[in-house]
């Protein structure tokens, strides 16, 4: 099959959705920006015109609110935030409005909007240009949150998000943009809420989100060489998340390591750990381990960044710990 990079897969999903459905449009600060979107939105304006590909003023609150209003009245907007940090200026339309309207008005009004936020970290960018705040949004009833880690899922989840009929936060990570993978050329959906088993194994379950799923794949290689048989789950959706898949895997292995490159306190990993303990406590043979970021803002200096971010090595160490 044909391969695309993660960024190209996102672009293809946009292009096909725009071609398929005249209600789809794209709005946000930096849509045509040469730095922010990589190739993930490249030349969409040339293909679909600037009426539908709207590179906006620096007005996150108004553009997101406007997209929500357009969604309520029949469109299928995708809002682009080149960094999740900037999206916080749109907290009101996302959390107070989009998330609530279906419930608030007893299902008579819905908000079929996709809000795309890029996690773009490292490179000495620091505290306000690197935050991974998916847990904050996953906390909110009424929002769905997806985090693809492969080109295949990047495309399929965007399509599913646009067609979902609910406000969906689509979170992609710049660290994955150059990753290659097989991508079907037709329009297809990856179901929201479904995780995927990347590898079956019997010793320990590793559940990973976003780029940590890619790091986990590398960790598995090392661990396999050391004779450890890992079962690897790529969560893909963090709200709702695939409880059945995680429970059945941990039910089998009895050990769980959760890798989520966001702050540890109050994060997705904590949610998964609490659910596993609450639902299948007796299956556990060892304490659950979390591989997350320390509870501190991101520093800039290279030395501090190295100490701050987590990757394959940290997963390896945690797996060995729960097996010790």
């Amino acid at each position, binding site marked *: 099959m044909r391969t695309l990079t993660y960024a190209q897969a996102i672009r293809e999903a946009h292009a096909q959705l725009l071609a398929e459905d005249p209600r789809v449009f794209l709005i946000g600060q930096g849509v045509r920006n*040469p*730095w922010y979107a990589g190739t993930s939105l490249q030349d969409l304006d040339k293909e679909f015109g600037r009426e539908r590909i709207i590179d906006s003023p620096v007005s996150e609150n108004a553009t997101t609110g406007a997209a929500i209003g357009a969604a309520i009245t029949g469109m299928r907007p995708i809002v682009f935030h080149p960094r999740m940090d900037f999206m916080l200026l749109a907290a009101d339309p996302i959390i107070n409005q989009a998330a609530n309207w279906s419930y608030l008005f007893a299902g008579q009004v819905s908000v079929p909007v996709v809000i795309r936020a890029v996690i773009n970290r490292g490179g000495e960018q620091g505290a306000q240009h690197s935050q991974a705040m998916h847990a904050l949004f996953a906390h909110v009833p009424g929002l769905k949150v997806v985090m693809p880690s492969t080109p295949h899922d990047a495309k399929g989840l965007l399509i599913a998000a646009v067609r979902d009929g609910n406000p969906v936060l689509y979170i992609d990570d710049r660290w994955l943009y150059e990753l290659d993978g097989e991508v079907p050329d037709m329009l297809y959906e990856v179901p929201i809420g479904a995780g995927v088993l990347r590898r079956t194994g019997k010793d320990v379950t590793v559940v990973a989100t976003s780029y940590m799923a890619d790091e986990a794949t590398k960790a598995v290689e090392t661990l396999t060489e050391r004779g450890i048989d890992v079962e690897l789950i790529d969560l893909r959706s963090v709200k709702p998340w695939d409880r059945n898949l995680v429970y059945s895997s941990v039910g089998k292995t009895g050990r769980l390591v959760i890798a989520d490159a966001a702050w540890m306190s109050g994060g997705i990993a904590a949610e998964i750990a609490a659910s596993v303990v609450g639902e299948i406590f007796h299956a556990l043979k060892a304490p659950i381990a979390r591989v997350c970021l320390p509870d*501190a803002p991101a520093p800039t200096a290279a030395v*501090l960044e190295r100490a701050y971010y987590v990757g394959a090595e940290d997963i390896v160490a945690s797996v060995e710990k729960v097996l010790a």
Partner: protein
Amino acid sequence: MTVQKNRVVSLPNEQMLSFFRGMQRIRRAEERIGELVQSREVRTPCHLSIGQEAIPVGICAALKSTDTVWGGHRSHGHYLAKGGDLNAMMAEVFGKATGCARGRGGSMHLVAPAQGVFGTVPLVAATIPLAVGAGLSAKLQGTGQVAVAFFGDGATDEGHFHESLNLAALYRLPVLFVCENNLYSTHLTLKERRVKDNIGDSATLHGMAGVVLNGNDVTAVYLAAHQAAHRAGTGEGPTLLECRTYRWRGHVGPAADLEVGVDRQCELHEWQRCDPIELCRDLLSAGGVSAARLAEVSAEVSEEIEAAVRFARQSPCPDESELLHHVYASRRGV
């Protein structure tokens, strides 16, 4: 709102010479940072203000040392003009422990509390309301301090700008809103972001004083800031200063953005003919200051910058053990 034309007002040579030096320091420091980024010795994302130096220098010359300034992603000039230590800035850019933020911030997060620079941060418009808060604090405490919000034309796209102007006007706060209108927000021109080129009109709208001025004329900037600071300090409330200028380099990094397809070659050449430093040099020459004296100043500045680079290079990196320090303040407020 008043629109200022270029006026011939002559300030004493000594004062003009200090403007000349101040602008040279910013330019030379930023040129050097650009080179260091290009050679990859330095990795910090840097936003250079080359071409805009008259604004921080003119504004800060009208301030007291206790006044505060607030900036954004493009704030080397604000930090330096307000008296921030050059060595500490250079070390910060290098990510060293001797940096003004001990290597936690890089170019986009500069700080010098003792000089009234409580922080520059790269979320567009974020510090405009903070400056309003500094004005409120000064008013409530009766300190006579003035707060300056430095921000770009792009920041006026955000609600922060409009809400902040209203608050400051409503409570007659001692705030200078300094919009460095360089006609771009990243790759987008002002025309692509608003119907009219009328940021300065926001002053009228909010019932506050406002001026639109040539931001490359350091004298004009200084005089306007002087008046605005006087008004602020005497309880007459805030002023919006729209300073028209142009950034010579690209949005981020040392290049000019021509390479990423921003079509601005002609414009750039035109603006380079209104170089704030050359304008100042002409006035100094006309005022009888010798070319030799000006060359001497430039040489002194270059040496100061090189010394700062040496300092930064020789400084130690922060220690990994510091990673979790200062997430919370270590002292209780008093």
